[in-house]
Structure formats: structure tokens, C-alpha cells
């Protein structure tokens, strides 16, 4: 992250803020959608995250990388909103299958895999999302989720194993019913 943008934001420069927003909007929204499983909630999480970034940029330690700081705020905000909804016993509609949001030229074959990912417990789901959607290293996942590196490795391993098992079970069931 360009230090001029950071200094600009600290000084209340709205153009600098828009520059930062433009650079990270897409990855931030993708991550929030994957975590919350709900587009409206994801938008709320992204909105709140960038507001927090603007308000708290002066607390950001410039000797460290910006991305982990940003995504840590976003992950926590997404989880906070998700838990808030669960607490209120409102199960939000999972709108990830809404055709409007799926790229037209993509094959629908990934639906089962996406559903399998989203059916995982958060313990393994979040590391999987951060690795495969954001391209995070295991160290970055550990820093973002505040868990030890070995735990990340173990959860990624468990996550992939569970996904494979689920997909194999699905294939077997399909073959049986064919």
C-alpha cells in the first residue's frame, strides 16, 4: 500500500480513501460474500470495514503489511454480523445461487463444490476461503484468524479431506440413482 494514500487518509483526504477502496473493493466483497453466505450482509460488512479503516488508519502500523490488517477487520466484521443474525434466530436466505450474481460464462458444475465448502464448519471453512479465494499464504491465514500456523495447516488438510469425501459421496449417490 502506497504510504501517500495512508497519509492522505489520515489527513481526511477522501480521494485517497476512494483510491484505497477501488484497489480492494472486489477482493473484500468476494471474501465477505464467501464468509457470510449472504450478499446483503457482505455489503454491510464491507461498508463497515472501509469506514473503520478510514477512522482508524492512524492506528495502522506502517512497518507492517496493510492487507492482513484490512482483511482481519473484514473477517471479524463479517463474523460479527453473521453471529448477530444467528443470535436473533433469523436464518438469512442463502442467495449465492441467485443467477444474477453468477458469471454467465461459467459452468454450473461448481455448485455442488461451493455448497460443500459452505457446509463446512467455520473452523475449516474460513481457512479454505482465505487460501483459495484470497490466495493467502498459511502464515497470512494464521495472522488473520489469530490461530497458530500448525492449526491452519491442519484445518486446510481437514477441509480438503472433507470436501473430497462429500463430493465422492455425491458421485456415489448419483451413480446409484442413475
Amino acid at each position, binding site marked *: 500500500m502506497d504510504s501517500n494514500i495512508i497519509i492522505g487518509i*489520515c*489527513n*481526511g483526504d*477522501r480521494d485517497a*480513501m*476512494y483510491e484505497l*477502496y*477501488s484497489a480492494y*473493493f*472486489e477482493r473484500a*466483497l*468476494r*471474501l465477505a*460474500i*464467501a464468509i457470510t453466505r449472504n450478499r446483503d450482509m457482505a*455489503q454491510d460488512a*464491507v*461498508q463497515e470495514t*472501509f*469506514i*473503520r479503516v*478510514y*477512522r*482508524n488508519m*492512524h*492506528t*495502522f*502500523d*506502517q512497518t507492517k503489511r496493510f492487507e492482513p*490488517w484490512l482483511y*482481519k*477487520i473484514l*473477517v*471479524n*466484521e463479517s463474523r*460479527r454480523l453473521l*453471529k448477530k443474525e*444467528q*443470535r436473533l434466530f433469523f436464518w438469512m436466505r442463502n442467495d*449465492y*445461487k441467485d443467477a*444474477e*450474481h*453468477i*458469471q454467465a460464462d*461459467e459452468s454450473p458444475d*461448481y*455448485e455442488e*463444490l*461451493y455448497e460443500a*465448502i459452505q457446509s463446512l*464448519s467455520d473452523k475449516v471453512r474460513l481457512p*479454505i*476461503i482465505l487460501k*483459495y*479465494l484470497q490466495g493467502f499464504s498459511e502464515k497470512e491465514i494464521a495472522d488473520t484468524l489469530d490461530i497458530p500456523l500448525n492449526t491452519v495447516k491442519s484445518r486446510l488438510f481437514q477441509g*480438503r479431506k472433507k*470436501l*473430497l469425501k462429500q*463430493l465422492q459421496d455425491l458421485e456415489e449417490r448419483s451413480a446409484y440413482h442413475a
Partner: protein
Amino acid sequence: MHKNDFDSDIRESLHQYTTPTSHEKEVLWNRIERSLNDEKPLSRKKSFRTKRYPIGRVAFGAVAVLLISVLVLNPSIGYAIIDQVKALFPAEKKGEVELEGMKESTDLKRVIAPESEFVIYYDEGSFKRIETEKQVKFVPANPLPDYIPEVSMTIEQFPNIKPEELAERKQKELLKDFTEVGEVKTMTTPIQGFSLFSAKGNQWDSPVVSLFIVSNERSGSFLITNRYFLEGTEGWGSRLENMVGEFKVITDK
């Protein structure tokens, strides 16, 4: 399935179902900008966060322990020493806690408990101290609704039980009642000793008990028990763990 193919499929499925629509970027920016316009101007006085220097804290703690040792061994020494101890541990100080990824400044209040042989600072904006016969206990300053599980910190001394033994004993006790009981871990932060984490379930309101066991520098231990609930891990849990870092043993060595 080939590993690389599977990795690529996972990546592709996540991308396919999380694509932003063409108008979302501007719609969200407008919402963000409206919120920012409603805010007060940013303070220019704030500077970038500076790093803490643990060596300084360790040295400070060592001097403090030494002085308090003198006080405990020689209660007749008088108020001059007490004053020095108080000078080392100001009655109030500023602290910092990380909540859900964000740093928050806190006002900390000193508790010197020579009879219990420790000193601790607590966040007086969030907690209040409750007097009990054998424990020092902190609970939320504003009572929580009834449906929220207990949030508290208790500090007890076990003069004749070594830390390792106490940790093992507590782990066995927790296994009777809690569904998830972790391993006893050696810790160096927030303090030197042992830690043990346990939870009863995986719902938002599942009770959590987090134990910190520290040597009393003689033949016994201090047990710090933090109670909160799963969803409160990054809130109440962080506040309580931050307080654990403010705990210092008064030793007579």
C-alpha cells in the same frame, strides 16, 4: 481426483459464486461516503501507533516486585516504601486492548492486594471489583442481560499446589462438564505459566472457561479463571486476557 485439479476447482467455485455485480462498487461507495460525511472531521493530532518495549516492562516489573517484597517482609518499614510502590504502580494508567481486530484505549485502575500477594490493573470502564473472602473477582461494570452466560475473572491462590499439578487437576475437573477441553499449554504471554482453554458446546452462547496458572514464586500457584461465552471471545475474552497481562505476583524471595 488430481490434487492440482481439485485445488483449481475449489478456487473456481469460490470465484464463481462471489462475483460482484457491475453496480455494487459505486452503490457501496456512496453508502460509505454518506456515513463518512456524517462524521466529525478526523483529528490531526493522532500519530501512528508506536511499538511497546517489553524489556522496559520486564525491568519495571522486576523493580516493582523487589520493592513489594521488601514491603511484605518488613511491614514496619512504613509509608515511604508504600509510596514508592505506589509510585511504581500508579493508581490509574492508560491501557490498550484489541477488540475484533481494532485497538481500543482503556482506563486501567490499580488493585494492590498485599494480603493476596499480587497486583493487578483492571479496566474500570468495563469491570468492577467484587469483594469475596478468598478470591478477587471482577465482573462487568454494567450487568449483562440474563440470557448472556457469566462473564468474570476470579483470582485465587493455592499456596500448596504447584502450577503443573493445579493445571492437571483443573483439566480433569473441566473434562467432567465441558465438551471441549484443550491441552495444558506452557505460555509466556500474556504471563509466564500455563493456560487451559475449554468450551461447553459450539453455539454463540456456549460458556467458555479460560484458565491461567502462574507460580506464586514459592511452593504454590495463582489460578486466574476467565469466564465468558463463545461469541464474546474477541470482545470480553480479549478484555479479560488483556487484564491477565496486568497481573504481577508479590514475592518474598
